[in-house]
Structures are given as C-alpha cells and as structure tokens.
C-alpha cells in the first residue's frame, strides 16, 4: 500500500469514532422504512455523497414532500395487503414504477410507456396498485429507460411481512430474531455528471463502468453511520446489523444494480430460504426443504435472496466465550455443587456455567496459541483487545475503540474486492461491519424509524 491505504484505514476509524460519539448506540438489526398500504412517492433530484468527498446529482423517490432518497423509501407491507403507490413527478422527464414479482399490478393515470404507465413532468400523478400476495423481499424500480433511471437512483425495496410475525415466509423454518436489508447498487459518476450538465445525449449505456459501490445507498464507511444521519440527507439507510450470539438474523439481500455481486458473510454460512420472493420448498407446505447454506451468495441483478444467519462459535475448538475454568483457577467455596458438571467431557467438573448457545464440547478449552507481542501486531479499530467474545483486552494506546461491547466484528462485503473501494481508497464501497455480541449483552436494540434506539430488550 502506498500511503493512502493507511490513511483510508485511519479515515475509517475516524469516521466511525464520529459515528459512535454522535450516537453512542450500536447499530441494531431492524429494517426502517414506511409502513402501511398506501404510499405517496415523489420522483425528484438530490445530491448523494460518497465518503471520499464526492457529490453526485441523483434522482430518487421521496416520501411525499421529503428529500429525494437513494434508495427510495423501503415500503413495508403485510402479506395479502392491496398496496397503492401514488407517484408524483418533479423531474423534467417521464418516470414510472414497476414492481417485479408482484401480482395484478395495475396503473392508472399518466401516459402509456414501454413497461407501464409513466408520470409526465408536472402533470397528474400515476397510481399503481398491486396485491402483496406472498411474503418476501422485493424491489421496485423505474420502468422508464431503466438503464439510465435505475443508475440515477430510482429504485427501492419492498418488504412483505409474513402473516406470522417473526418469519420471513409462512413457514417456521424461516423464523428470525432480527432482520436487515442489504440493497446493493453501483454508481458510474460519469453518467451523473453528464446528466447534471444537461448532456443526456452523451450518455452511452454500453460504456457504463461503475467505480462506486453501495449497500442501502451508502459506501463504506458511511454504511456504518446511523439511519437518518443528518449529514446524509438523501441516503437515510444504514447497514450495520448487530445480533447476539445464538440469535438468528434474516438477511434480506436485493441487487438493484446491473452487475453480479458475490456477497460474502464473514463469520459463518447463511442459509438461503427464499429467492425472488419465493420460499425454497419442494412442494407447497413442505417448509424450506430446498434451503442451501452458502458462504458467498451470488446476487444476480434484479434478484432478491432471503437468508438466515446465526453464530454460536460451535466447532472452534477452544472456549470462545472465555471460560478458562479448567486452568489454574481456584473453584469457589461451594464447588462442586449442584449444577456443576463436566460440560466438555474432559473428566474435570467445570465450575463456570455455559453461556446460552455455547457449544459444550469447547467449554473451558484454552485458547490454543500464544499471541505475539503487541509490537509485532497491527490492530483493527473493531478489535476489542481480546480473542474472547464479550471481553475487552489491553490494547496499545490509540488502538481499537469501535467495539465497546467486545463483540466479534465481521466484514460483510462484495467479494469482488475492487468493489470495496471508494475510487482508489480502500476500504470502502460495498462493505460493512456486522457485529456479534455476547448473549445477554443487549447488543441488538431495535431502532425507531427516526433512528433513535429503543432501550431495553
């Protein structure tokens, strides 16, 4: 790395420190958006920004009179709802909305277009109605010159919630504790600059070459800033989920971009239970019996994937929860007493209880290696100083600091690594940090739509 990489890394740390100072709240795992059955969206322009200081004219769907959003508002509806979306156009060109995978879409008003009816500039709105027949993750997008208008930002996600709360689909195989959206997109700034300069006739779709990559409309490290961060008025959605060990996160992946993206979940495989808004079942009612576990999910443009992720540390071969009970430790006075058992089967009664979700086989097993002297190591901002979950260790001054609960941080990112940059600065782009905290740590706090946290859990 030639200097700028280091700067970028410290830039990430600095940016995150700001985030933490401002919010003092760990990101949680909940999807924010608009709930209801009737939505008024307005297509308008705004400027999106990137962490390297870039600012690009974009088009976005706004919630009524609100700012243009990149992506548009996440529409959260319930299975069976008849949903109405009224689109008002404040742009200077026709726009529209299509809802791939939605049944019985009807459009009223506006003018007939290739994909659907379109809202003309400064004319009456178009009303789209559809039935959210099946639970799952969907997208909406412009059906007018999509190669240009999706690039400009006219897309968003739709969450159709199952009639059974806490399930992705109408099957208990899809139960989850928390959910999060990962809406992927790319930006080719040349097109945005041409549009800003009124040079639409110069836009050549065949020369499209993105150099900015985003999750939920932000490039890392902005992905880790809070929802509705005031300095990102047109990019309201963050992407920094957080669960406790043993909890199940529903990952709602949607690729609004044009390129395939291999989405890699560090920390574990995830179990894909749905694609394109359909439960992966062999026959209706079978449950998710066609589910597959993958460590890198191939995200096809236009596709959505619903996948379940959990983390327990099982099989690591040492006590990742830090119970060094069998080594050099004096038991308490009442040891052995009721409940004191040999969890890991090594013939020694353990005096420390197991954590919920902890694997018995690894309970009490020592950390397997000696770590080098700190001067031999470089430390990450998300390193707690301890290899154990939920513990903080000694770190040299100025190191760490982004992980106050001693969680395990995992990079979740496009494994096309060139998409993990902001132009020539690494890390950035289509990347975020996902954090697992210890059971009972209160790590996963649901967030209100305004971005404030709901205490207690």
């Amino acid at each position, binding site marked *: 790395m030639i200097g700028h*990489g280091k700067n970028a890394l410290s830039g990430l740390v600095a940016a995150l420190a700001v985030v933490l100072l401002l919010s003092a709240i760990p990101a949680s795992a909940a999807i924010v958006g608009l709930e209801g059955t009737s939505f008024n969206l307005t297509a308008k322009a705004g400027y999106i920004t990137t962490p390297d200081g870039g600012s690009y004219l974009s088009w976005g769907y706004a919630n009524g009179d609100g700012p243009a959003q990149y992506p548009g508002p996440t529409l959260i509806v319930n299975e069976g709802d008849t949903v109405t979306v009224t689109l008002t156009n404040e742009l200077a060109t026709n726009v529209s909305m299509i809802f791939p995978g939605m049944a019985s879409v009807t459009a009223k008003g506006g003018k007939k277009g290739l994909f659907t009816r379109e809202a003309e500039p400064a004319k009456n709105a178009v009303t789209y109605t559809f039935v959210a027949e099946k639970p799952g993750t969907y997208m909406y997008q412009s059906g007018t010159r999509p190669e240009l208008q999706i690039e400009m930002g006219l897309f968003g996600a739709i969450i159709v919630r199952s009639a059974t709360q806490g399930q992705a689909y109408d099957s208990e195989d899809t139960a989850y504790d928390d959910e999060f959206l990962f809406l992927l997109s790319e930006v080719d700034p040349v097109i945005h600059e041409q549009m800003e300069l009124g040079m639409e006739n110069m836009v050549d779709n065949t020369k499209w*070459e993105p*150099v900015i990559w985003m999750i939920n409309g932000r490039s890392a490290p902005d992905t880790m800033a809070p929802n509705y961060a005031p300095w990102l008025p047109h990019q309201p959605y963050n992407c920094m989920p957080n669960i406790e060990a043993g909890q199940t996160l529903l990952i709602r992946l949607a690729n609004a971009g044009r390129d395939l993206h291999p989405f890699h979940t*560090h*920390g*574990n*495989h995830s179990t894909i239970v749905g694609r394109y808004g359909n439960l992966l079942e062999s026959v209706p009612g079978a449950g*998710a*019996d*066609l589910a*597959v576990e*993958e460590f*890198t999910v*191939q995200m096809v443009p236009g596709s959505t994937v619903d996948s379940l992720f959990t983390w327990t540390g099982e*099989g690591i071969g040492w006590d*990742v*929860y*830090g*119970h060094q009970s069998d*080594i*050099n430790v004096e038991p308490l006075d009442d040891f052995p007493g009721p409940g004191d058992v040999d969890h890991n089967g090594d013939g020694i009664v353990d005096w*420390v209880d*197991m*954590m919920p979700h*902890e694997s018995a086989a690894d309970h009490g097993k*020592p950390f*397997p*290696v*000696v*770590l*080098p*002297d700190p001067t*031999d*190591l470089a*430390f*990450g901002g*998300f390193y*707690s*100083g*301890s*290899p*154990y979950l*939920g513990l*903080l260790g*000694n770190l040299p001054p100025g190191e760490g600091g982004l992980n106050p609960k*001693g969680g395990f*941080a*995992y*990079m979740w990112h496009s494994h096309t*690594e*060139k998409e*993990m*940059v*902001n*132009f*020539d*600065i*690494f890390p950035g782009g289509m990347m975020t*940090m996902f954090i697992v905290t210890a059971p*009972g740590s209160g790590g996963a706090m649901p967030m209100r739509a305004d971005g404030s946290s709901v205490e207690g859990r």
Partner: protein
Amino acid sequence: MKKNRNKRKEQGMRDTRFASGLCLVAALMLLSATPAVANVGVQCPPDTDGIDTNMDGLVDNDNVCMHLSAGDGYTQMADGKLQYIFSYSDLTGIEDMDMALMQGMRAAVFPAPTIYLREGEKLYLTLTNVGMMDRPDLFDPHTVHWHGYPNAASIFDGVPDASIAVNMGASLTYFYTSPGPGTYMYHCHVEATEHMQMGMLGNLYILPYQDMLPDLTDLNGFTHHTNNKYAYNDGDGSTYYDVDFPIQLGSFDPDFHDASMGTEPLPFALMTDKYAMLNGRGYPDTVGPDRIATLEENNGVNSQPLNSLVEATQGDKVLLRLSNLNVTRFYTLAVTGMKMKVIGKDAKLLRGPTGLNLYYDTTSITLGGGEAVDVLLDTSTVPPGTYFLYTTNLNYLSNDTEDFGGMMTEIRVTAGD
C-alpha cells in the same frame, strides 16, 4: 503438506474467570481478557489428547502444522510477461526465524501453497511476514483469512479491521479445526483489494470422515472399500471420486502489478483484469507440468508450481474443486464433450435440510470471487482424448493481447485396461 510435530512452546495462558455467563458484561470490566503474549515463532504443539479425531486409527497425529511466509515475488504470464506479486510460500519445517526470513523473502508462489486437511485434524498455521523485498517502502502487515470457515472467531478470521495482523519480521500462529468437508479457499485480507489482486490467494479443502470408514461399510446400499475417496459425508457414495483437482479461477490486471512494482499510484476502482488464469497460469501453461521456469527473480522458488491439467482414465470419476478468487468479475467455466454434476457449493453438500438431493447436471458453472463448487465428471462413456475446461466469457481466452490462451485447461482421458 507436511505434518510437523514440534515440541510444544511455552503457552503461559493467563486465566480469565467469570462467575457465570450472564454476569459477563460486569466481569469483563474487572478482568483482563488478553491471553499471554510473547515473542513467538512457529507454534506446533504435539497431539496429546489421546483421542483419534481424524479417524485414521492413530491418537497422536491429529495436529497439523504449517508455516507460511507472506512476502513478494514474481510470476510469468503465459505470454512471457513478468508480473510482480505478493503471496505466500511454504516454510513448513523451518523454525529458525533467520532461516525463515531468508527462505521466505521474494519467494512468493501463486496460487499460494495448497492447504488440505482431513476432517478432525487441527491446523496450527504460522504466518511469518517476511516483508516485500522489492518494495522496501512498504511495511504492510499480512493475515490469513480462511474463507468460509463456519462460526469463525474474529481473532483467526484475518480481517485486520476486526482483529490483528502480523507485522514485518514477526510470526502469528492461527488455529483452525477442520470444520467440515468441502472446498474453501484462503487469502490475505489486509488491504484486500490490493493484496488479493497482487496474488495472496490459495486453494484449501477438507477431506471427509467418510474416507476413513472400515472396509465394506454399507452406505445405504453403496459398499465402501478402504481407500475409497468421497467429496462429502454423503451417506450413499454419491460423491465418490477416483481423482481430484483443486482449480482456482483467478485473474491479474497487468497495469496494477506494474504500478505496484513501479511504486506508482494503484488503479483500484478501474482495475481491469487482462490475464485470466486457472491455478495461476494461463493456457497453454495450465497444462504444462514444469513449464514455468524457476524464476531467478523468485529466490530460486518455482513461483507457479500448480498446473490444472486434469488427467483421468476412462471410467474415472473426476472431482473438480472449483473456487474463484479473482477480485474484479465473475467467470463462467464450461466443460466440452461431457457434463458436470454439481454436488457441492461453498463447502456444503448440495442437499436440503431434510435430505432432498439437489445435485444437478450442467455444462458450465458461474462463480464470483469467494464462491466455490464441487463438480464430478463421469468419464465412463467419454472416448479417450483431450477435452477442455474453458471460460465461456470467450474474450478471456486470451493472455492479455495474446490469443488462444487465458482461462482454459485440458482434460485428458486415456483408455482403461
């Protein structure tokens, strides 16, 4: 891969104790949670647990030790172009750090040395950062990321932002159990876009317990014989194979490598790969056993030791362990004259949670970076001859500006008895 059984180094583990799990948050404020540290080199403890975890009948050989250096070196593309790389080289057996630095410097190989384990084995993987000899201005740390390791602990996950990375001149030992059979991969995660484009990428796979079953074990009607090999613990012999080949899809952007060697600004977002390769070579070098000369520039080390020539006797079941670790694009890889049966994805047998069989036949697979599939080729009805594994992104049948090359190798089927 060698097994090393060195004397166990002093561990000196520091205690950490807690009353119970739920008091943990309070407890962590009081106790140090950092294990002991020391100036350490290779750590390779003997297997003294008295348990035969790899099911080979021996109780004392389940620990596997490897020693890798991370540094720089050179490869030669199939059109003759020299490419400066970062990667790993195999120092297994070398404990003396001066010796390790001497042998590891400017000796990188691409792809990185293949790691394979038998299920039940424990890997102590020591990484020694020997520095980039031809880039003395760089002081980059390095890591190993075992890509796909389930339930990974962040300390051994190799993501520098989330844990630790090892500085120049020092060693860090990673510990992994073998988490389940299948095809994984490994790479450095420091400045991942750069270090991976530069070549810090390797094959990694795990052999299943099922290989070790007693002779004549019945697997749902399939009779296991000693020395039978399987891709997974399938329970029915359906992943049986005669020969297997790890093949990693990858590609280089020559402008990036040249800029790195020339200490020039690196093109990140505009990275464009021009050399599409299998196991670090473009066709026709993909089929040459020793075609890549030992480069003078590479400390006498054969920097591209792994070909991807698939050789089989008619009737063989051939297992291809396909992974993709390029950092710029997806590739589709096809086979001529026969079909592939896809039996695994991302180190998981293709079965649903209730056991439904999801294997499928195809002529090509499409992989992005960080994806892996296991495919079987059944050569029982394939006439002897030469077939091909090639990318149907046909413009990548090029070694940059040279034609008839790129991401392609041969499958040579010879007549049986």
